[in-house]
């Protein structure tokens, strides 16, 4: 099993994702430079966080036109598992591989802290191993994580079970106080209709060892492992 971690100019969580996949989960992992036109024979792709192209114009707006994104779109079409984290989520939105858009945090501050998440869709390659009812403790670090979908799109996402994560309090209650950025419906992560493309603002790759404050992020990568091993 092989995973690819995309690298854009300005990616800065690429090595964290590599570490989580390779050293913590033992998954054969390679970096894929954004100029590549093929992603090779991988079983999954991580689009890591950071500030691709310095967030110029809009977060992710320029990265989506990197050559590698054509290959990523083809991989998504084939049902390949893709996880976009933070800036990776923003890139997936700009590339229209996921619906909706991202705005500046409501409070206009860069927010870097641990948040609590509930998972509401375990039928994705990255969430199947998350225990029922578990509240995940995973950090966020972003200035533009205020997810926006108009009421029509929001209803569509909810009806199709495409909301994967919501911000909640430590007991799992979805409250306005638990929302770190003003996201509509406390949405922290969504997936596409098929469920193979997932985008989330929190950083599971930063929560894979107890020494990091939490190892709850491991459930996401465990999910991909068990799913792909089952398919073999």
């Amino acid at each position: 099993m092989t995973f690819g971690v995309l690298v854009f100019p300005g990616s800065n969580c690429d090595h964290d994702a590599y570490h989580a996949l390779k050293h913590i989960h033992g998954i054969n992992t390679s970096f894929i430079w954004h100029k590549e036109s093929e992603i090779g024979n991988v079983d999954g792709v991580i689009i890591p966080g950071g500030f691709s192209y310095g967030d110029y114009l809009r977060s992710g707006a320029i990265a989506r036109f990197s050559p590698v994104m054509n290959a990523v779109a083809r991989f998504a079409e084939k049902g390949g598992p893709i996880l976009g984290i933070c800036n990776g989520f923003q890139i997936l939105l700009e590339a229209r591989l996921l619906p909706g858009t991202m705005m500046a945090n409501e409070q206009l501050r860069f927010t870097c802290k641990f948040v609590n998440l509930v998972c509401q869709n375990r039928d994705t390659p990255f969430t199947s191993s998350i225990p029922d009812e578990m509240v995940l403790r995973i950090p966020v670090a972003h200035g533009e994580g205020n997810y926006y979908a108009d009421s029509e799109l929001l209803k569509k996402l909810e009806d199709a079970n495409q909301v994967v994560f919501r911000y909640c309090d430590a007991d799992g209650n979805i409250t306005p106080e638990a929302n770190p950025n003003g996201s509509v419906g406390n949405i922290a992560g969504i997936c596409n209709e098929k469920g193979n493309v997932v985008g989330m603002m929190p950083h599971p790759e930063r929560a894979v060892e107890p020494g990091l404050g939490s190892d709850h992020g491991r459930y996401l990568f465990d999910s991909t492992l068990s799913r792909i091993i089952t398919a073999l």
Partner: protein
Amino acid sequence: MQVDIVITLRESILDPKGKASHHALENLGFRNISSVRIGKFIQIDIDTDNPEEAREIATEACEKLLANTVMENYEIRIPDTSS
């Protein structure tokens, strides 16, 4: 030909930067300013003298990259060359 593009957030979208600036203006004593919306101003040079062609190219640039039409509107301003 120089073309100006003004990008603004759609009316339905909350504009936190505009809101914060409005609040600051109120604190400075500007009582008659009822709202502030913050957008982007982009100037592009297009190798053509044909305004229609320039508009077409600028529109395509906005649709493909410069504006995120999910949340932004854009206005293309072409200089008047008729005089």
